[in-house]
């Protein structure tokens, strides 16, 4: 009787897990069932898809690099203390995480567009225009993905025992030396995790990209945009392209799982 109750209890706890897993696996299964397998390679290898794949990899990798450059100093500063200023800055720089990406795209246009606060002078004096360019895709992706990097790395930095850095300082190491030789190696795992999350967010970016950078094959049409375009005219190609995006993401996360998220 008791054993049966335990079994039932175990089943009851397992059920939500099964439901939740099914919730995420079913869409993937749907894609697999809809895929035109006999023409998969032909579709996935078409120039339009390969162009979009290359552009996506290029832009998401560049965006991850940009989030490292922009995000690391920010994360270090944010993790360096408490206070209202830091709290306000944290809210401001993580806003793109909750902002609908289309809104982000409009905000980017108003700031970095041809008539924008920064984009205007750039266009007038340096003849540099970001909207409708590949650089614009990277900018949009960086905007939406850097907050993920910042939050991940800040959390990593905060979890590092400060006494190591203090000990290094006591032993005569300067702040830069301490950071480079003590703190950085300790936060390396969260740095890598932050890069992967930022990269993944950049890879999937759609709304800010189509709003800010437009949609031009070979220049700004990344894989998510290619899926959107194909969906309306060639649904089969859309499913193939979606699967390609899934394969790229799953493949990378799977290959790097031990490196990025070391088992405890």
């Amino acid at each position, binding site marked *: 009787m008791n054993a049966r109750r335990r079994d*039932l*209890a175990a089943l*009851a*706890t397992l*059920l*939500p897990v099964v*439901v*939740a897993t*099914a*919730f995420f696996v*079913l869409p993937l299964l749907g894609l697999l069932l809809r895929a035109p397998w006999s023409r998969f390679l032909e579709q996935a290898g078409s120039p339009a898809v390969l162009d979009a794949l290359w552009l996506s990899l290029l832009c998401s990798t560049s965006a991850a690099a940009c989030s490292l450059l922009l995000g690391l100093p920010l994360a270090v500063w944010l993790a360096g203390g408490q206070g209202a200023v830091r709290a306000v800055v944290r809210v401001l720089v993580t806003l793109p995480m909750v902002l609908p990406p289309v809104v982000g795209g409009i905000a980017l*246009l*108003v700031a970095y*567009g*041809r*008539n924008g606060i920064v984009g205007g002078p750039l266009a007038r004096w340096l003849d540099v*225009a970001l*909207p*409708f360019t590949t650089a614009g895709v990277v900018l949009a992706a960086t905007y939406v993905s850097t907050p993920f990097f910042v939050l991940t790395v800040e959390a990593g930095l905060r979890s590092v025992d400060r006494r190591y850095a203090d000990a290094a300082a006591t032993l005569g190491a300067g702040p830069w030396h301490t950071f480079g030789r003590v703190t950085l190696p300790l936060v390396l795992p969260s740095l890598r995790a932050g890069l992967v999350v930022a990269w993944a967010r950049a890879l999937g970016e759609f709304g800010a990209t*189509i*709003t800010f*950078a*437009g*949609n*031009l*094959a070979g220049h*700004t*049409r990344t894989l998510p945009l290619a899926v*959107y*375009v194909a*969906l*309306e*005219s060639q*649904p089969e190609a859309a499913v193939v392209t979606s699967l390609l995006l899934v394969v790229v993401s799953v493949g990378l996360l799977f290959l790097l799982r031990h490196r990025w998220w070391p088992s405890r």
Partner: protein
Amino acid sequence: MSRGVGARLAVLVAAGAFGALGGCDGAPPARVVRVFAAASLSAPFTALAAEFERSHPGATIELHFAGTPQLVLQLREGAQASVFAAADEVSMQRVVAAGQAAAAPSTFAHNRLAIVVPADNPQAIAGLADLVRPGLRVALCGPEVPAGRYAREALARAGVALHSVSDEPSVTAVVAKVQLGELDAGIVYRTDTTVGGVTAVDLDPAQGVTATYTIVPLVTARPPDVAAAFVAFVVSPAGQRLLAAHGFVVP
């Protein structure tokens, strides 16, 4: 700790999951007619729906606007709708071919293309040929969007080889980017240029391509009589007057 709570929780979770799977396909209440209409019909259909509701007490028109190909896709994937109004005949034929039309489509309006430019036309654009001037940023809708296809037809007819900087998803996206000053010009419908901050440059009549709008009640129509009544209202003299007031050419 009761099993009851666990079970109820599971039911809730399952209901949530099915709700999410069902998405927005939930059936509207009995007297609500859901109309899927091309994005360029936003203004006249909002007015038509209000007028229809006034003359048909108890009936509610629920409008859903999007690019025509997007509507076709949503219908194909099982979205519940009662009436479909398309901006091109190709898209309408797709819906008819899929067996989703409950009657033969009727043509209810035409639209002309126009070049949309910022309000004061700073680049002094006078026609399609001006769009290829070096340094200009011009965008069209993508070729899968009716307005994009019509624009390409017009350009081909005029012998103008335009490089579109972006294949925009809808006419509204093109107009918005002209408003923001990101584009110097775009090609949209004449009726899309009535918003603030932009103005229209008409095309040479010889280069003009006419968009044809068709409407049809769908087999999924609920309630079918109200859906049919709305379609009849759109093609009626009163409906046609409203469409003409919004700049559409009525047949």
